[in-house]
């Protein structure tokens, strides 16, 4: 297997292969101590049904980038499109966004929280719950449907938040450090769980993470951002078939280790 692909050949992508395209995207925030440049001229493409991991140092604009793609923000400069939709409102309609925190409503049980994604689109409460229920079975949350968020473990809360994101029914999944708040053991379990979920769902996914190993384990391609203001400094293909089995075993693969090293080098450059 050929692994060490050098700087991803900018293969001409036909527009139908491209799910997400960012061109020259810049974004600054106003703060009390003058403007903060979060992103500087980001160019990035995500192929349809590809899983892209976005890694970069803290504060380099990863969340900002994800919110821009999601249509929750507009860039100051540059263009963004998701499935060909250019306006923020249109992008909102094709992207499902999962924030760094689980953001479950404490008064709703787990099933009700997942069903919120359907209710927000006008589906009735009972019908929404009925439609959300099979996913609990499928993604290892059976019997926890009626638990309140406070009664769930951190990992389970994160799974519920992910199911809510899936139930939004959008083509594009944007996941912002979904495991950042978890301890390392739960984190490992959740990475395997997400790998299976992403393989089963076949959607375009962008996953933000701090963790290079997580990125290589879960994604088809890893984009490395520079420190603030963020811009893409390297794109690393991960030509290993997904899902990649048990995490511990996947990580012992020499190809895997080499890719992790390359990503780390790009990060530290």
């Amino acid at each position, binding site marked *: 297997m050929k692994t060490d692909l050098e700087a991803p050949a900018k293969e001409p992508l036909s527009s139908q292969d491209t799910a997400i395209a960012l061109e020259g995207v810049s974004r600054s925030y106003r703060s009390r101590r003058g403007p903060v440049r979060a992103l500087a001229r980001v160019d990035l493409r995500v192929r349809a049904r590809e899983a892209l991991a976005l890694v970069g140092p803290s504060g380099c604009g990863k969340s900002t980038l994800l*919110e821009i793609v999601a249509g929750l923000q507009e860039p100051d400069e540059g263009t963004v499109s998701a499935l060909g939709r250019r306006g923020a409102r249109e992008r*909102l*309609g094709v992207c499902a966004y999962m924030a760094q*925190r689980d953001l479950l409503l404490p*008064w709703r049980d787990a099933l009700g929280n997942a069903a919120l994604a359907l209710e927000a689109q006008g589906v009735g409460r009972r019908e929404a719950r009925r439609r959300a229920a099979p996913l609990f079975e499928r993604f290892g949350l059976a019997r926890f449907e009626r638990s309140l968020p406070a009664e769930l473990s951190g990992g389970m809360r994160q799974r519920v938040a992910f199911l809510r994101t899936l139930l*939004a029914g959008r083509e594009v999944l944007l996941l912002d450090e979904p495991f950042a708040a978890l301890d390392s053991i739960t984190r490992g379990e959740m990475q395997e769980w997400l790998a299976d979920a992403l393989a089963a769902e076949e959607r375009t996914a962008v996953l933000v993470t701090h963790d290079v190993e997580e990125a290589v384990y879960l994604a088809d391609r890893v984009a490395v951002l520079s420190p603030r203001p963020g811009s893409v400094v390297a794109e690393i293909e991960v030509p290993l078939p997904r899902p990649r089995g048990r995490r511990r075993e996947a990580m012992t693969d020499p190809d895997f280790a080499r890719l992790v090293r390359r990503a780390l080098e790009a990060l530290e450059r």
Partner: protein
Amino acid sequence: MRRYLLSALLLAAFVALWQLVASLPGVDDLTLASPAETARAIGRDRSLLASNMWVTLEEVLLGLAIAVALGAGSAILMHLFRPLREAAYPLLVASQAIPVVVLAPLFVLAFDYGIGPKLAIVALICFFPVTVNVLDGLRSVEPELLKLMRSLGASRLSTLVRVELPSALPFFFSGLRVAATVSVIGAVFGEWAGADKGLGRLVLLGNNQLQTARVYAGVVILTLIAVALFALVTLAERAAVPWRRGGTAG
């Protein structure tokens, strides 16, 4: 449980002190009725007290209901329409500065001796804590939750119903607790300004007629009403906001 025990002890100590002061030489029955005399008055005048209590209770409960409906309603409107909030908030604060004691007789002049002016005064006093707390509650929702609703494609109304109103519930109950306690005072003011029945009037009358024990009996019952309302609101909050066990907001 221990909390209640302490409260009971404190109350007992207070009653004992009261009894002690009342039995001091030089303190006559007209100045201060002892707890024992007050208890006797409650027993003796129980039908009189009861019939007047129902009148006052009706004023309090209806006035509170009006305040809750208007207060929560205007808080929601002010939340949804920012210009309205900016315009109305100073007026809301100003309404609190109105000396109700002065206003009460005018209300009675404007309306009559009936229940109308009492409701107006109770509602005026209770409106503020309800409105301000509900508004704070609606605005306290984490921006990230609003972002989530936006990304899920929720309408403004859907976000209000599914996220903002439930988040505001604990705040609403905080406001209601304050409102419940001051509502009794409002009803008494209303009756003082002009009424032919009610505990407030009974107390005023008793004062004029030097029936000190009856005055104290009325005051004790008014206090009990306020405490009972407070407890009722707390129970209702536990039932309505089970995800925040016993917690109070704001």
